[in-house]
């Protein structure tokens, strides 16, 4: 697929992306397309780099090779001001919520509006209340972020992400930590944002069923490669072992539950002692951040 063609119906195109963290190759020459007005899901085991991919698309991390085109512009070639202008139209919902802890829920949602628009305060107030109402937290407007549960914080973050009426939103694990009721409401909200505002959505999620229910297209990533892609039906019927394992949640299969390591018995039997323990290898942060979820 060439750039010209893809940028017509795609809002975001990732071409031949390669990205490494130290020695570890996170992405190895992957290409993805995110169509305008559609919901595209990215799925894959924990630690494959889904969050990393969103940060690359948002221009916070730089790829080693390849490029990312958002709305016809190469994100990583933009000047700082141009990138910031583009970002105003890209909403991002962080995995952790990333709310500013020194202001109330209301002020958090109002923050991008106050920074980027010259709307009068009364208008901002109505907009904020509308967004909070959409995520079911209008009553929580005076709480501080530390008084929210994880799931509530993420919904406030969603309200903040849609405050500027962006052309696209990247959701990093929007369903994690939601009870079945708010989960259902969120799924509906994401779907309706998509249809009513014609928003392009990128959803990173582990929740196979919820995601399959609303996504128009799904990419399954594993170990730096796209191991499967297609509509939810196609994915469900995929013959790929990788995809089947992921969709069915089998612990055993080509995708490993374990972070790459040497043989278990080897590790247990031999202790290792570096010569200079203060000279920390550059990827030891990686080891600390490993998560099993």
């Amino acid at each position: 697929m060439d750039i010209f063609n893809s940028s017509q119906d795609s809002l975001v195109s990732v071409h031949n992306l390669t990205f490494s963290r130290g020695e570890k190759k996170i992405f190895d020459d992957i290409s993805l397309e995110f169509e305008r007005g559609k919901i595209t899901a990215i799925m894959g085991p924990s630690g494959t780099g889904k969050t990393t991919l969103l940060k690359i698309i948002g221009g916070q991390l730089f790829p080693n090779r390849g490029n990312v085109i958002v709305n016809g512009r190469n994100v990583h070639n933009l000047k700082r001001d141009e990138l910031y202008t583009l970002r105003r139209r890209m909403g991002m919902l962080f995995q952790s919520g990333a709310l500013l802890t020194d202001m109330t829920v209301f002020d958090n949602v109002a923050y991008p509006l106050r920074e980027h628009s010259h709307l009068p305060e009364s208008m901002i107030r109505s907009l904020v209340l509308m967004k909070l109402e959409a995520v079911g937290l209008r009553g929580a407007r005076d709480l501080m972020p530390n008084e929210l549960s994880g799931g509530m914080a993420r919904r406030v973050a969603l309200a903040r992400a849609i405050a500027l009426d962006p052309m696209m939103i990247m959701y990093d694990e929007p369903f994690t930590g939601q009870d079945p009721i708010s989960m259902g409401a969120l799924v509906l909200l994401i779907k309706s944002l998509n249809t009513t505002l014609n928003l392009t959505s990128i959803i990173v999620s582990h929740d196979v069923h919820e995601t399959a229910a609303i996504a128009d297209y799904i990419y399954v990533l594993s170990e730096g490669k796209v191991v499967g892609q297609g509509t939810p039906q196609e994915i469900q019927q995929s013959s790929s072992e990788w995809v089947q394992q992921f969709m069915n949640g089998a612990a055993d299969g080509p995708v490993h539950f374990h972070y790459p390591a040497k043989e278990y018995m080897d590790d247990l039997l031999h202790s290792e002692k570096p010569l200079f323990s203060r000279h920390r290898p550059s990827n030891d942060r990686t080891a600390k951040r490993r998560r099993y979820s």
Partner: protein
Amino acid sequence: MMDFFRYLGAGTRKSFTKLGRASYFLISILTGIGSVLVRPRLLLKQLHSVGVLSFLIITISGLFVGMVLGLQGFYILSRFGAEETLGVMVAASLVRELGPVVSALLFAGRAGSALTAEIGLMKATEQLSGMEMMAIDPIKRIVSPRFLAGFLSMPLLAALFSAVGIIGGQIVGSGLLGVDDGAYWSQMRANLDFQGDIINGIIKSVVFGFVTSWIALFEGYDAIPTAEGVSRATTRTVVNSAFSILGLDFILTALMFGDN
């Protein structure tokens, strides 16, 4: 042996790249100051938490340092029968040295460490990334106001320290030890040099404020975004600030007072 040199080399390279990052960071902070000036509320809030909240520790410490200076000065000066000059001694020590240096050390411990921890935690909880993705520059909105607040507060805090210290010296000197009250003040007024003592003291505290705020904010911004990383960065702020303050104090003193 080779490993040792390699270790040394890697260490040196690391310090230099860190210095490079710190310089680049400083340039971004300084270019962000313009946007702080159009939003005075951001600055006022930081002046409160960086400056005003340091008042108490500065006042109390200044009082005690001044009182100790009064005691020590009295015992030495009275041996030469020169108790009347106690005021000059106390004031000169405070204005030239102890005011700027001790208040900067206290400032690094009280406000600098807090700044590092705050910025580091904001980084660890992705608040800074979050702002970037909202197209809001965290340097302009978060870092520059704090820098400006630290830079502006330091000379004022140093002046407060010296002023309270002089009063402390007077309390001990003339209140307890019987130095003539009028002599304490008039000697001070006659012998303290505006240019040589006061201005130089202010220059020192301006330099210390600049460096301490820079170190504190950079360490926070450069911290490894974990609980441990932030705690180490906080320690580094206090240690590096102390070294920089004392080292710079020597250099500045040599430059300012070297020829008289």
